[in-house]
């Protein structure tokens, strides 16, 4: 070949090389995406500013929940070279193995090498004291730095269930709401959950640029994509901190629930579940340990919010309901007399009753809590001629009950509210067979006296008393009064929910009976001198052991300020524990101090959890 012609090969080679390089550039720059991802992981720091969560105050302006600073120890695995890991293990009190295990989890892998460049939480929610010890030696811990965050702090160790707690979001919460990213905090229960959107505020986002040494080099595009954090809103709760604290003290060493509501507004003054726990246990790095400890208590089950979620047979307190329905339906007047023969005569003395004068009228029946009387009343409601059948009578009765907010979620602002239970006719069809049950069947089962399958939560129980105190309506029970910067919020609870019992005389008659409970009936021992009170005892049979002690109460009779329902599990007569506790609560709330120190002392010291043998009580009173 002529050497001159070799230029074509040379030029051809140059062109070929140029084309090959251009093709490779096209692949790297246009086709392949992984480099773009790596670049943004390396050079951008996606910073999230966590706003402080809103504080929660009680109804008198006492601070209940606020924030404290906690520290997350962050690590960038790539920068760890030369780190004094032994020293770090010693301060964190972890083993070298544990440290290596955590690092292996956080470090980059074949699939995602960029994890090496990013920050990860190595140890979360360290308290200031631990942080201080770390800071002294921070210069030795290459690759580690500390980021401050806010965690909850509680002024008083009270109302754990009501306030709820805050924790890291789980996968399901992340998936259902794009606002949350892994590592964020979210309200898990109680007010923290119910008012999460107000309390959390709004996260701020910043895209910062950083260099190879992790130094921040300013905002990306001068902050075009950044947004400022918005602080969470402060909430004013309806809770009375003093009353709540007192309630928890009275209920200590007993299992049960207590609910106190201001009838004219529906504001929850106290909501006590016992046993309870110190809400501070759920703050900081010991959360997991403490949680497990509380879960392990299978007897007390301190995590279970009994006041809101436990459905109890209401027992004799439900007689008030049947009286109201009977009066409304016209099958009962205050003067109606029914006999009692240590029980309900038509069924040969079942349900049984305790000794008292017979026959009694309506007032006497409430004051003495006569089982026979309310079996008659219940049966007469179902036998009402205006309904085609007894089954229709039962359906009508059930609708009355539902209108009091029982057997359904009332719609409080607390999550996980339970419905309770008012059996449907279909349920009885299933139990007894279609057309095989009559009014007498259900009377015998105890529906007239608040037994059988009836289930009512303490909150619902208290709501019934509010309705009676209001003579016919209730406001939905709630625990937040006002929200900072949201003036329309108060409107949310002003609606009056009228029940199907609309006759005011019915309420006055029942209230008179409740007043007699306190003056000469089952509750006379807990009457507070100088206050006209209306109450009702209950001794609820249950399949789990001794009867539950129940008491409902509102006061004063005119212009009621407080309605309360107390249930103490397996504590026997309603007058034994529930009544004194309810009465002491009312005294504390209305008078601001308690004078009946003996009664108070007895309640504070009684221990029903650790008792060896239960009292043997059977009949309901």
């Amino acid at each position: 070949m002529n050497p001159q012609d070799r230029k074509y090969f040379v030029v051809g080679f140059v062109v070929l090389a140029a084309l090959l390089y251009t093709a490779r550039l096209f692949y790297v720059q246009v086709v392949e995406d992984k480099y773009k991802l790596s670049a943004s992981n390396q050079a951008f720091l996606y910073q999230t500013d966590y706003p402080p969560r809103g504080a929660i105050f009680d109804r008198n302006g006492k601070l209940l929940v606020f924030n404290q600073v906690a520290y997350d120890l962050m690590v960038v695995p790539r920068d760890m070279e030369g780190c004094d890991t032994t020293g770090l293990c010693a301060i964190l009190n972890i083993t070298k193995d544990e440290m290596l295990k955590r690092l292996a989890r956080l470090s980059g892998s074949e699939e995602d090498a960029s994890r090496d460049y990013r920050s990860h939480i190595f140890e979360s929610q360290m308290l200031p004291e631990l942080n201080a010890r770390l800071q002294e030696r921070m210069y030795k811990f290459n690759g580690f730095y500390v980021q401050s965050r806010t965690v909850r702090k509680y002024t008083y160790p009270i109302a754990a269930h009501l306030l709820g707690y805050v924790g890291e979001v789980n996968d399901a919460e992340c998936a259902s709401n794009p606002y949350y990213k892994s590592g964020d905090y979210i309200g898990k229960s109680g007010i923290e959950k119910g008012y999460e959107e107000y309390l959390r505020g709004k996260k701020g986002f910043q895209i910062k640029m950083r260099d190879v040494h992790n130094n921040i080099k300013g905002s990306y595009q001068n902050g075009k994509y950044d947004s400022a954090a918005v602080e969470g809103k402060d909430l004013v709760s309806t809770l009375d901190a003093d009353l709540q604290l007192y309630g928890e003290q009275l209920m200590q060493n007993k299992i049960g629930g207590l609910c106190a509501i201001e009838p004219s507004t529906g504001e929850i003054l106290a909501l006590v579940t016992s046993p309870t726990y110190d809400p501070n246990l759920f703050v900081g790095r010991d959360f997991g340990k403490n949680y497990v400890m509380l879960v392990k208590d299978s007897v007390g089950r301190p995590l279970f919010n009994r006041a809101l979620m436990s459905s109890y047979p209401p027992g004799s307190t439900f007689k008030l309901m049947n009286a109201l329905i009977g009066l409304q339906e016209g099958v009962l007047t205050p003067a109606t007399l029914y006999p009692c023969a240590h029980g309900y005569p038509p069924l040969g003395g079942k349900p049984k009753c305790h000794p008292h004068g017979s026959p009694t009228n309506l007032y006497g029946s409430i004051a003495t809590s006569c089982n026979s009387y309310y079996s008659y009343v219940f049966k007469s409601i179902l036998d009402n001629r205006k309904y085609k059948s007894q089954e229709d009578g039962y359906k009508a009765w059930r609708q009355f009950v539902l209108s009091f907010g029982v057997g359904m979620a009332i719609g409080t602002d607390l999550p996980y509210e339970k419905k309770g239970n008012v059996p449907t006719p279909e349920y009885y069809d299933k139990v007894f067979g279609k057309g095989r049950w009559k009014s007498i069947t259900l009377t015998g089962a105890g529906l007239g006296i608040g037994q059988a399958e009836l289930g009512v939560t303490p909150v619902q129980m208290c709501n019934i008393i509010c309705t009676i105190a209001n003579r016919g309506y209730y406001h939905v029970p709630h625990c937040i009064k006002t929200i900072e910067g949201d003036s329309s919020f108060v409107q949310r609870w002003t609606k009056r929910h009228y029940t199907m019992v609309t006759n005011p005389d019915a309420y006055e008659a029942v209230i008179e009976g409740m007043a007699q409970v306190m003056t000469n009936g089952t509750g006379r021992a807990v009457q507070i001198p100088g206050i006209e009170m209306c109450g009702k005892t209950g001794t609820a049979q249950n399949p789990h052991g001794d009867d539950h002690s129940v008491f409902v109460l509102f006061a004063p009779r005119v212009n009621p300020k407080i309605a309360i329902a107390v249930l103490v599990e397996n504590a026997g007569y309603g007058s034994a524990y529930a009544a004194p506790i309810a009465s002491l609560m009312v005294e504390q709330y209305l008078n601001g101090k308690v004078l009946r120190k003996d009664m108070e002392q007895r309640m504070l010291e009684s221990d029903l959890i650790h008792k060896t043998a239960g009292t043997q009580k059977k009949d309901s009173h």
Partner: protein
Amino acid sequence: MREKSERLFYNVDWLLVGIFLALIVMGWFNIYSAVYDEQKSDIFNWTRLESKQMIFAVTSVILAFSILVIDASFFTATAFYLYAGVMLLNLIVAFAGAEIKGSRSWFKFGGFSLQPAEFAKWATALALAKFMSGLAKPNMKQAMGVAIGIIALPVMIIILLQRETGVALVFAAMVVVLYREGLVAGWILLVGLISVLAMVVGIKYHEAIGILVLIFAAIAAVRILILRKKTFKQILFSALAVLYLGGLMFVSSKVIEKMPEHQTGRIKVWLGLDVDRATEDRFGYNTKQSLIAIGSGGLAGKGYLDGTQTKFRFVPEQETDFIFCTVGEEWGFYGSAFVVLLYSMLIVRIILRSERQRSDFTRIYGYAVASIFLFHLMVNVGMTIGILPVIGIPLPFFSYGGSSLISFTVLLFIFVKLDSQRLLILR
């Protein structure tokens, strides 16, 4: 009235000058961006790289036009003296130079430093052109060995003494010149290429060399079988070929383990062989970061001064050997392809102009210039986009550094000057 040929800049190839100016201007703006720092930007601060590079660029342009003023016969006449002088400097620096990053190739004078190895590029090109153009045609084949032996090899050895492997390799590109001049046959280049491929395959698939040799042998056997004339010569040739390739693969797979650690590391990472994490981080980091920077540029780039990977120094040596990353990141595929296009135009233009010369000297020099630029372009850009292993040589007119910028300018403009006097027959 003066003769046309005596007019200043008569017959100068303005396209080459234009490409040169375009590259040098783009190069400076690119340096400015690579070292850009919002807090400290100040081009009149003479300790800053972009300011120094500005001085180098202006000096280069002045130098370029000065060369155009000098008569071309100056270079033909002094080629050997220039070569000798530059070689002496290189020899001195190899023993007396300042040690920087493991190599001894720099003279330091206060704030500035000088790398004589860069000058060796144009000096060698000149000497080669002088020597080869002076040979009588019949003797050329025999003289080839002498040409390489006397001129190119000593340069490579001296520069290897300075431990600048990358720069030394540049002179291997002179094989293109020899090929054009008919001193190296095409089949030798082909064998060379196949040999390099065999070595790469041998390193990459070192576990399967036995199987590969068997496959080659099978192919050779089939070839012999279908041959009409089965001469002993043919059989011997096939056997030797299989033996040669197999031997090369085997030897290279063993030699790779004996090479200096950084070379072994770079090659293994480049070939995607299994290496431990530390090796990968140490020798793969540059390429990885370089790919991330270029790859993140996308189609149209992030915009001038808005590159994050280069600005925030994720890419090591980004203003020198890895300067192409800044182009790729900030100007995207459009920008990087344009730069490749511009260089290709430069190289092809030089080749085509060289072919039009009456003077052997100019043609040989031209080919030397073209092959030096081609080598730099392919090796430098190739390593930034992961086609080739990391070899530390600059991208002409783009990489930071006075010695290289001035050397490339001199290299190119001697050719421009020679070319402008193509109507005269120079020695």
